[in-house]
């Protein structure tokens, strides 16, 4: 690996019940994936306020992954559905303003899907590498 290759910095807001567990499982099964994700545990994807995602993106994160339970699997009944709606609103805002909504990923990853977690991180890193660094980092005037 080259020293100066761009390494995207991904903030992972991962649901305690499913996706965070999947991250654990990926480790237990020694499934390799890039280290670019910064896993932050949340109680539920339903608690992910759009402002968290904005904070991360405007703060310079190259990507934000919201890890949630699959539809209807939510321990708290419907947090993931609510998250999906809020994410749709947020993405629409970003998209309309030309702010690269594809830096925000909402992913359904169950506790048993360690492999999927690893694949998702890998794919996200790959795509963010193609996109390059978050352009916001070039601006101090935000």
């Amino acid at each position, binding site marked *: 690996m080259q020293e100066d290759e761009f390494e995207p910095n991904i903030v992972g807001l991962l649901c305690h019940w499913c996706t965070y567990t999947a991250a654990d499982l990926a480790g237990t099964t020694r499934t390799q994936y890039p280290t670019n994700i910064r896993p932050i545990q949340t109680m539920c994807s339903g608690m992910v306020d759009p402002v968290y995602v904005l904070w991360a993106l405007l703060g*310079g*994160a190259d990507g934000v992954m919201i890890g949630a339970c699959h539809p209807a699997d939510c321990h708290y009944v419907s*947090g993931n559905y609510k998250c999906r709606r809020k994410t749709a609103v947020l993405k629409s805002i970003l998209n309309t303003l030309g702010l690269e909504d594809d830096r925000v990923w909402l992913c359904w990853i169950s506790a048993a899907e360690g492999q999927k977690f690893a694949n998702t991180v890998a794919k996200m890193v790959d795509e963010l590498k193609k996109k390059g660094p978050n352009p916001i980092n070039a601006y101090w005037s935000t």
Partner: protein
Amino acid sequence: MVGAVLVIGAGIGGIKCSLDLAESGFKVYLADQSPFIGGTLAQLDRWFPDNHCGMCKILPIFSRDESSQFCLRRGLYHPNIELLPLSTVSQIDGNTGNFQATLSIKPRGVRKELCVSCDLCAQVCPVEVPSEFNEGLENRKAIYLRNPLAISSGYAIDWGSCTKCGACVEKCPTDAIDLSQEEETRKLDVGAIVLSAGFEEFNPRPWSQYGYKRHPNVITSIQFERMLSASGPTAGEILRPSDNQPPKSIAFLQCVGSRTKERDYCSSACCMYALKEAVLAKEKNPELDTEIFYMDLRAFGKGYYRYYEQAKGEFGVKFTRCRIPTIKQDPATKNLFFTAIGEDGGLVRREFDLVVLSVGQTPSPRFLELGEVLGIELNKWGFCKTQELSPTETSQDGVFVCGSASAPKDIADTLVEASAAACQVSKLLSSQRGQLITTKDYPEELDLSEAEARAAIFLCTCGEEIASMLDMEEMLDFAKGLPGVVYVEQTPYLCQKDALEQVKGKIKEHEVNRVVFAACSDITYEKLFIDAMRDVGLTPSLLELVNFREQLCSINPDHKKQAMEKAKILVAIALERVRTQEPLHLVSQNVEHQALVIGGGLAGLTAALSLAEQGFEVQLAERTAELGGNLRHIFSILEGGDPQALRQNLIKRVEENPLIRLHTETEVIEVSGYAGNFEAVLKDTDSTHEPIKVGAIIIATGGEAYEPNEYCYDQSESVMTQAELEQQLASGKLDVTELGSVVMIQCVGSRDKERPYCSRVCCSQAIKNSLSLKERNPEIDIFVLHRDVMSYGFKEEYYSQAREKGVLFVNYDLDRKPEVTIEGERLIVQTIEPTTGGVLKIEPDLLILSTGIVPNDNNILAQMLNLELTEDGFFKEAEVKFRPVDFVINGIFLCGLAHSPRGITETIAQAQAAAQRAASILSRERLESGRVGSEVNERRCSGCELCVSACPYNARFKDTDKGVVVVIEALCQGCGACVAICPSGAAKLRGFTDKQVFSVMDAVI
């Protein structure tokens, strides 16, 4: 009497029963012969009838911080439950209430308290054997973990394959492995025993006609489940064993090991799981051709028929009614083909890439021995025999049974029975409630409200596991330099007792009030670490765990730089979280120890008694003047038992029980409050009562018989419903000697467009009444026109009996219903005979309509209590499988026909289950919230109620006087949906404040 219970079998039924008992104040020993918990369920990923996972929903709602709050696949912890793996019961002495159980405990070979689940042992183990968990689709070692998610359970040795070469002993960094361990015995004093040992899947190998194990592409349904599983051997890909290629077509063959001469029972769950497997396969690849070959499609549970329709319509799963005699294999392609006689008498020829055998449930062969030890009778198939009209009672006092140990059943019915068994135990041992549960005394939590954050970071090296990836010196330096850190240390094994003692000392010495443990997955030792925190007077909210091991394991050992970088980030995240964390203490609220049961039918009476007999006061409200509901119209039961005697007995016991206050001709007109503290207003014909305070509410408002308007029901005395026939048979009004022929039509008012659900009981009724008619007059010709005969479980035998006695079962299609006309005095029934395609014309003396069950108008009650109804108008439970009698709104429970159509014994079980769930609230002194919970900043709250709509638990409401929203602490589960929707930041989640989240993100961006 002893306030402890032995639960045998740690599958989902045993776990549920244990949790229910533990939650209502009993000590539970949960024993399993295997080294791991979870049973069959842990092998499955998703469930019918909604393709979802919802296991975590069975975890306790109240006082949740004391039990584990993780995906159940990772493990289970509750302070009142002691897990006893590798244990079999060898002897039982004593009597009900005072048993002494002797358990033989096989050696694990691994000392659990030392095992850190590092997997090094398995890596060096030279022995490979097929993995049971993955059904032989993959190998495991002789020292192993059943499932990689379950690391908290520790490794175990499979003595059957272990060669005792000692490689693992040498490798183990904590000296946890001991190959010389010997079997131990342990004696337990328990008041009651619950058998929940489940089933074994039928081994289709002896059925040589299907070529299982000979034809590689013939697999069992449970093997297929493992393939569908994301954590399975194929990581969720469906692959043909012969060539590891994805199949283009899959056949599912039903009734493998069920509904045969040797096993004349239905395994109850296979139709549904085959449907689910086909649907999940289709979800993965819509191009896939899936076909289910079945005899009767038994989709009889709640929501199952809709699921079936969805599988057929939306997913395009094909269904063919026929039993496949033999499967042949093309030696070149390894494809499978078969020929059978179809429903229409023609030949069905098919070729498939993969064939899945839907294997049935068989009793475990060790039941024979276990039955003897426990002194319980088994039935002729080897399942545990239960008492008439008491589904969880065995032939031995004080020994109860639940789940598939007594009859094949699915998860939802298993969990209902698990709670019902817990209820029966609680009744028996109610005087000993709370006697044997031990609570540890911790020092009072320090008041840190004014204290500055002083953090310590303890880095575990996990022997070489972590240390080999990280430069620990550099890590220590890094940690030291972080803000607010006053102490940093590394330890080889943080999880070991001495290490924790030292940690506690350091915390005190350095006046540390924020702690970061960087070790391994939180499931493994969280409880241990929390305990250590509480020992030094710190609330667990001031502890943050970093999952070094699992999060670093996945990094290639050659990439040390990346590992260091990631480790630093993980520590930074944890430190920032804990540094900005306020100390959180538990709050609790009082509980009213009385219940309100709404409805005085079978379900309501049973529920009321089940609570009163545990010592709780009950207010029982019945709308009509008479108790007994629909039970009044039932005079016999297919499997035996006298419903009228049951009714009279229940009424007598209810009337005589001093703890039950009975209100007939009374309706509930208003309910306010929440779990533990409801206030309900009852109104009878004369007046509105003073509000009563109750801690829990049980809805048992029943359902109604469908009133037919089809098949000339109103036009002839000779057309009647099954209930009317039953009554006439019971009263002797009907002269059966005069009858020449009788036709019964099934699914009248069920399983159609308007009511797309199965009423579950009508097929049994038809079989029961047919047998009854035949018994009285064997000469009667009886035709049962049906769509699928729902004689699930042991009802199958009666179906066989009816056929043997000459009852003719003729299938009809929904779009080709029988036609009934009246010509003069004569009734004419015409239906299409499926095998010939010709019209079968019968002129019966009697036409019996098997009318289904329809819901009452439940809207008013649902609105009053903020509950949801299903599309069909029944009450909607919290989760169809894992919380089958609970509502999302806590403190309210559900049973009987208000839930869905079901038979008498099933209703009894469900009513007991609902009572037990209510008892888990009523038995508490106080309801405790969790540390993570939501709050409202009143000054900032605009009262927009967005959070009220977002809260799934009704834990928020608006105080109209103040114009702000208020949180009911005990109901809040801490999900944070309120926070995400509150625009002003007035909603706050303790433990996850906005500022904390921002701070944590700042630390890593």
